[in-house]
């Protein structure tokens, strides 16, 4: 049976998942060598959750995440060397070494950040989606958060508003079943997070987060729904992190058998086998991709290692915008590339046509016109 997916799509997804995997393995090594410090949360096992959705949306759609945020920017197309340099705390990093592992930002690729406070990015995503509607753009915002974040007030407050105002935002809960060492079932009254969407009259679905294609399909569908103005969507990606909560966590709260069982669902070989079975690529092609990615990640580590620390006068920059000050474009700054930077319509160009409360507005108009109801 032929595949409904193109070879190009399948290999792109494979390449990206493999890139994230290799990148994270090297991150782990570099951390243990003392090159990386601070909290550092690896994405190993969850690659399908970042890669599938990214291929299902447009490059100019917005995305943001929590502190486990190396995977999504790599999926979006960020430069691996500059992400690694950020982890190393070097001046060539995306945030000049000021953000570190938990705060990767790549605005050029519309990745609006990793956030260190559990659940704090959830309202931001609604605000970005709000801006899209306000400006009458058909952009969607994809926002990642963990299962434990679903217990934050920010989740409830935001879902209420997003649903009421039909904001074009796709929330992807990465349910890897643990918030640090706490199994979600121990602290959540409703551990099937997608069911909570019902409380807000909102669309909610569970997806196999270990399957890149399932994630792709779910987000393609959700994006269409959002762009049609039907409101937000909550997708619960059932996934698993193969490693501990952070690099230094041995994850002794999980049984060895559990991890072994989950490892059988590794999303990367799964996609590879699918592609081979559909005869859309050969083993040799995959091996070539693997080698290319390995070289790419080696180069990223080398780039980070050879990059200088930020200069001390950087301390005084990037806290307050000074009048007339431009925004920093990392790849232009570091690699000398010309990049396309998002620009927004000025107040004069912008026409706000959207009505937040159409029905209620109409009622008021009627009343004004003296029509009884």
């Amino acid at each position, binding site marked *: 049976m032929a595949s409904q997916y193109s070879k190009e799509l399948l290999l792109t997804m494979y390449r990206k998942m493999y890139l994230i995997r290799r990148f994270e393995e090297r991150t782990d090594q570099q951390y243990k060598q003392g090159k990386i410090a601070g909290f550092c949360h690896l994405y190993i096992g969850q690659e399908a959750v970042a890669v599938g959705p990214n291929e299902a949306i447009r490059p100019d759609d917005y995305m943001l995440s929590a502190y486990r945020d190396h995977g999504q920017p790599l999926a979006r197309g960020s430069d691996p060397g500059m992400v690694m340099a950020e982890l190393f705390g070097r001046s060539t990093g*995306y945030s000049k070494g000021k953000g570190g592992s938990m705060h990767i*930002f*790549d605005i050029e690729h519309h990745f609006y950040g990793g956030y260190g406070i559990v659940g704090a990015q959830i*309202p931001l995503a609604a605000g970005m989606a709000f801006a899209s509607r306000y400006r009458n753009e058909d952009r969607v915002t994809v926002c990642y958060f963990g299962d434990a974040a679903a217990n934050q007030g920010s989740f409830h407050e935001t879902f209420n508003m997003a649903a009421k105002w039909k904001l074009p935002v796709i929330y992807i809960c990465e349910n890897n079943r643990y918030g640090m060492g706490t199994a979600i079932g121990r602290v959540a009254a409703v551990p099937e997070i997608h069911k909570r969407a019902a409380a807000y009259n909102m669309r909610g679905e569970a997806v196999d987060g270990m399957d890149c294609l399932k994630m792709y399909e779910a987000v393609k569908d959700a994006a269409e729904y959002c762009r049609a103005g039907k409101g937000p969507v909550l997708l619960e990606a059932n996934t698993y992190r193969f490693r501990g909560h952070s690099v230094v966590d041995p994850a002794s709260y999980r049984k060895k058998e559990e991890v072994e069982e989950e490892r059988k669902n590794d999303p990367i070989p799964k996609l590879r086998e699918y592609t081979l079975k559909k005869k859309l690529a050969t083993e040799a092609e995959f091996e070539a991709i693997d080698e290319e990615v390995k070289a790419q990640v080696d180069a990223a580590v080398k780039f980070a290692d050879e990059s200088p620390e930020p200069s001390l006068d950087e301390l005084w920059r990037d806290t307050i915008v000074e009048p007339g000050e431009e*925004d920093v474009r990392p790849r232009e700054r570091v690699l000398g590339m010309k990049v396309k930077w998002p620009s927004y319509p000025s*107040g004069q160009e912008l026409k*706000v046509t959207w009505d937040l409360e159409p029905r209620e507005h109409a009622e008021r108009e009627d009343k004004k016109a003296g029509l009884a109801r």
Partner: protein
Amino acid sequence: MAELMYREALNQALAEEMERDANVFLIGEEVGRYNGAFKVSLGLLDRFGSARIIDAPISELGFAGLGVGAAMVGLRPVVEMMTWNFAILAMDQIVNNAAKLRHMSGGQLRCPIVFRGPGGAGGRLSSQHSQALEANYAHFPGLKVIAPATPADAKGMLKSAIRDENPVIMFEGERLYAIKGEVPEGEHVVPIGKADVKREGKDVSIITWSRMYYFCEEAAKQLEQEGISVEILDLRTLRPLDEEAILATVRKTNRVVIVEEGWALAGVGASVVDIIQSKAFDDLDAPVVRVTGLDVNMSYAANLENATQPDAPKIIDAVKKVLYREGA
């Protein structure tokens, strides 16, 4: 020049800025159909529609964060907090996100947002509704904090705040909304970061801001009758502090009283003292005296509420103390 109430001046600023820039919108509890809990947004819903004047649910953290997200992609939200007491729930979004986005992104992002609402005590509302919390926000790099005292400053500074590329925290005075003053029409913009000498004097400087300014005026008038000439410096902006203006007034009068509605410990006034002692110590003829809210929670009982706050008699005592006059 028209004589306007403080709330009307704010309303004018909002309307003018929304007219000028379609990126500006207002969100908050009761800002729309109710016309604002303190009527600052009176009439704006009818003028600008429900896409730009947005009645939010009681979700301070939620809609504060929604505003921040909108600002990250180029809108210019004005987030009204019904009072700053409730904004404590939103502090994470204001402090951990708005104030830090530019830094954590290495200068990629900006966050042009205004959080505004009434602060300060009074009205027999007891502890949870009677707090001057500006020192909390003045603590954080990445925020600008303003607290205008007069209607003219309120209008001019709100316009500046909306045009600012950074998150601005604006403390209005719950007890100031009904006070009246001359307000220039149209393009009247007061810069952020500049203090204002509201009263010229030569014997002693009182440094203050927001509602306390009026108690200082009252005290100054009484002191004038005793032959004491008081200068009043209204800081207006609490972050960044106008060091130049602070030092200038110290060098002029050589004696300083600081009047602050909030608590003494870690208050804004403590930082003003620090600036003075480190940069103008030799210009002082007496130790700086601070008049602050008492180090207690606010009571409901009228006499206790009054005793908790600074007032003109307390300020007069402090002035006499720095002048080494009798009765202090």
